[in-house]
């Protein structure tokens, strides 16, 4: 091949992406700058300021961080210019890491949006990050459950139902222990948690039996579990919880600040002043990652997920790997449900998971079937969710339907752009037949 590569090819080669994608990236960057200018900057009056509060009512209040006060219009013009400049750079020279640049642009765009939305007002940034994290936790647990199941090639559509079962079980057992047996709450809550985990394990085992042993279509098996869970929990909640209020009141876990770490300005109280279930999520993320990529069990799990026949010819028991993983996956999903109760509201409502199990599956995919990837995606979903409620409070002049929609739309666009194509485990969803 003697053809000299065109400028485009060189730019694309620098970033390791196709020429068309390199060009699209550049145009998106410039477009973001233009949008900031047209939508936000021109709407800002001279002399207006946007105030970002960087504290929220937690233990860190002893050492408050001063508020961040930005002049609205100059900030927006500057952000628009930076985006346009980065776009020009991408088109002319090309970034070595174009996807990272896209992430930065997205961050800048959100910053611009918040600056505009909070012009003339104050906006509690730390408070919003805190609520983003809390909203992300159940999604992250659902996603983690998905990772654990799908890494060995069992699709778990039933996460939603498993969460619901976990939430109901935790409510009933923890309330029973607390209010009828008179246990102290330090005992009733772990008891509720353990019962939820046991219920989750049974749900996981049920899915495994259907999907692995009887080779039922996994989408159908998972859907059956969802329908079953909705039915049982709604029925029991109408029959029991509605009549005995003391069975629907668990109390909630209090935040436990981690010494020193919670004092880190701005993010300290967000990350390190949470209840124990949030810390349990952190631990689970690390453990899952280590097990998956650095232990015998993890290697076998991944092999079973990619090429079960190969694993079988090496004497690995494909069925056992799947049974164990899916059962654990059920427990993690139920933990997500228990968090909704013990870590959040303290009482059960019918259908209270409200699609978090499915959003968790989306987070799993965006996170490329990696524990921390899934957590990151869950954080973005949580952020979008929290942002949308905050904006409604700020009375931003955008129809509420769009407010509800926009963060998700943006999330999907960003994630599709930044993360790129996600490849599931090769055998995902296929039952294994011994020859």
């Amino acid at each position, binding site marked *: 091949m003697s053809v000299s590569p065109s400028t485009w090819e060189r730019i694309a080669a620098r970033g390791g992406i196709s020429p068309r994608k390199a060009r699209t990236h550049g145009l998106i960057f410039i477009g973001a700058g233009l949008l900031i200018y047209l939508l936000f900057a021109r709407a800002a009056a001279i002399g207006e300021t946007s105030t970002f509060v960087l504290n929220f009512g937690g233990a860190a209040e002893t050492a408050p961080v001063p508020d961040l006060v930005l002049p609205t219009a100059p900030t927006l013009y500057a952000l628009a210019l930076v985006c346009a400049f980065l776009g020009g750079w991408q088109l002319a020279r090309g970034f070595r890491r174009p996807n990272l640049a896209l992430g930065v642009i997205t961050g800048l765009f959100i910053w611009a949006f918040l600056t505009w939305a909070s012009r003339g007002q104050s906006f509690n940034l730390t408070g919003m990050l805190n609520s983003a994290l809390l909203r992300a936790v159940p999604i992250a647990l659902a996603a983690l459950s998905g990772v654990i199941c799908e890494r060995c090639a069992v699709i778990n559509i039933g996460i939603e139902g498993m969460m619901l079962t976990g939430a109901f079980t935790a409510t009933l057992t923890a309330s029973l222990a607390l209010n009828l047996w008179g246990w102290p709450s330090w005992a009733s809550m772990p008891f509720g948690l353990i019962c939820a985990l046991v219920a989750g394990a049974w749900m996981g085992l049920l899915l495994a039996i259907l999907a692995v042993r009887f080779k039922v279509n996994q989408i159908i098996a998972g859907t059956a579990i969802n329908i079953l869970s909705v039915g049982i929990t709604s029925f029991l909640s109408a029959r029991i919880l509605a009549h005995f209020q003391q069975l629907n009141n668990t109390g909630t876990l209090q935040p436990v600040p981690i010494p020193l770490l919670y004092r880190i300005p701005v993010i300290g109280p967000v990350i390190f002043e949470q209840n124990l279930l949030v810390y349990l999520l952190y631990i689970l993320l690390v453990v899952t990652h280590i097990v998956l990529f650095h*232990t015998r069990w993890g*290697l076998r799990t991944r092999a079973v997920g990619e090429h079960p026949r190969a694993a079988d010819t*090496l004497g690995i028991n494909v069925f056992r790997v799947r049974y164990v993983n899916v059962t654990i996956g059920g427990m993690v999903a139920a933990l997500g449900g228990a968090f909704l109760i013990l870590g959040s509201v303290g009482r059960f409502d019918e259908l209270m998971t409200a699609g978090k199990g499915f959003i968790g599956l989306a987070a799993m995919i965006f996170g490329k079937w990696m524990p921390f990837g899934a957590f990151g995606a869950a954080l973005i979903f949580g952020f979008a969710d929290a942002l949308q409620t905050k904006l409604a409070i700020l009375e931003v002049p955008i129809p509420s339907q769009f407010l509800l929609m926009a963060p998700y739309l943006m999330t999907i666009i960003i994630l599709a752009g930044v993360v790129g194509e996600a490849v599931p485990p090769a055998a995902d969803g296929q039952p294994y037949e011994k020859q």
Partner: protein
Amino acid sequence: MPPVLELRGITKAFPGVLANDHIHLTLEEGEVHALLGENGAGKTTLMNILYGLYSPDEGEIFIRGRRVEIREPGDAIALGIGMVHQHFMLVPVLTVTENVMLGVESVKHGFFLDRTSAARRIREISRQYGLQIDPDALVKTLPVGVQQRVEIIKLLYRQADILIMDEPTAVLTPQEVEELFKVIRSLADQGKSIIFITHKLKEVMAIADRITVLRNGRVVGTTTPSQTTEEQLASMMVGREVLLRVNKKPANPGETVLEVQNLEVLDDRGNLAVRGVSFEVRAGEVLGIAGVQGNGQTELVQALTGLRPLLGGRVRILGGEVTSAPPRRILERGVAHVPEDRQRDGLVLSFPVADNLVLNTYYLPPFARAGTLQQEVILTTAEQRAREFDIRTPSILTPVAHLSGGNQQKVIIAREFSRPIRLLIAAQPTRGLDVGSIEYIHQRILAKRDEGCAVLLVSPELDEVMSLSDRIAVMYEGRLMDILPADQATREEIGLLMAGVKKSENHKDTKTQRGIN
């Protein structure tokens, strides 16, 4: 001293076939024992029984004189049996080390994978047996020849001393086959006992110490290369005299039928699989495309037949533009397609033979009138074609799934050849067929050529390409390395081209060197 391995009276029936019928086989220490037989003779079944993947209906297995039960692969591995499967059993997204240690992982601190010590042992094995490998490479980035080395290392890592290799040469270039043979020799010299499965006569003569021939699930005989000839082995394998070469008249090329310019096509994963390919095929000639599987041939054929979108380039048939044309417009220009995967792309398996025979013409008279199928016409035509093309089927209403591979292929040939065609695109037309069917299909293809049809033949079987083609193009990593006249091309030259080496250049392409440290 008892033999390392002895199989006694192994019998295994599948619904409708007796795949293994009282098979006896002995394997001596340090010997290379070739198991020769046509496709479907029962070789893989026998080895799967030995490896614990199937359980035999009858028969006993002895290892060093001791009777053993092998219920699952774990048992076989524990007895020192290792198998390189016909379809590789590697996990593409894992590294060489991870693939090799899978199932016998070494751990440190009782918990964490010890990749370092595993990689060290792989390097030792690699040195001891001359199997060059980079333990840290991802398997999916390795060429097939190197992947096969990984499979062999897997066995040695488990300290197997009975090695089974099921058709290991099917995916290799001639040079890679030679390298493999060297490795096999060195393994045998170091005391390993090897069962080498193949249906290729030349290989048996080159590598085997002893040869056992299987036919229809039975042992026909055991011999040694010095006591036999290729012709003798062929007739043992097939059960009758066979012609080992194709007789063909010199070609008489006419006008240009297919013209391809700078064709670029993406594969399923979005990688460039065909990179700027240009060639033409003329009436009355066979252009053969040789190359190891997976070098873009599949995508090329799919693009030419309208089954895959083009990224760039032009395709013209008889001067008419068919770039990005839908498949029906292409076939209506007189193009016949014998697809690579006949069961997936060539037939509707659950449909009867008769319906499969009109899949490309059912909407035209006389098979359809006023939008309704004319069943009678379809059936009488099917009867006629089944006779004409010697399709062995209980009835033309039998689902085509129940036919043998050879007869399925004849259904496709009958369908494609029974209308006026100007261009035949045949991808691996004899894949998995018995010698008799191969002969038949080769004759049919050459007859089409002699009628003045242009033929594009794509096949990874070098012998097939060399014996049928008038010109030979070699495809490597999506490019045509060269196009040679068939009467001047040598096996060595084509083999080198298949590995990405041009004589004048005399250096290897980087891809083939990846995975070698």
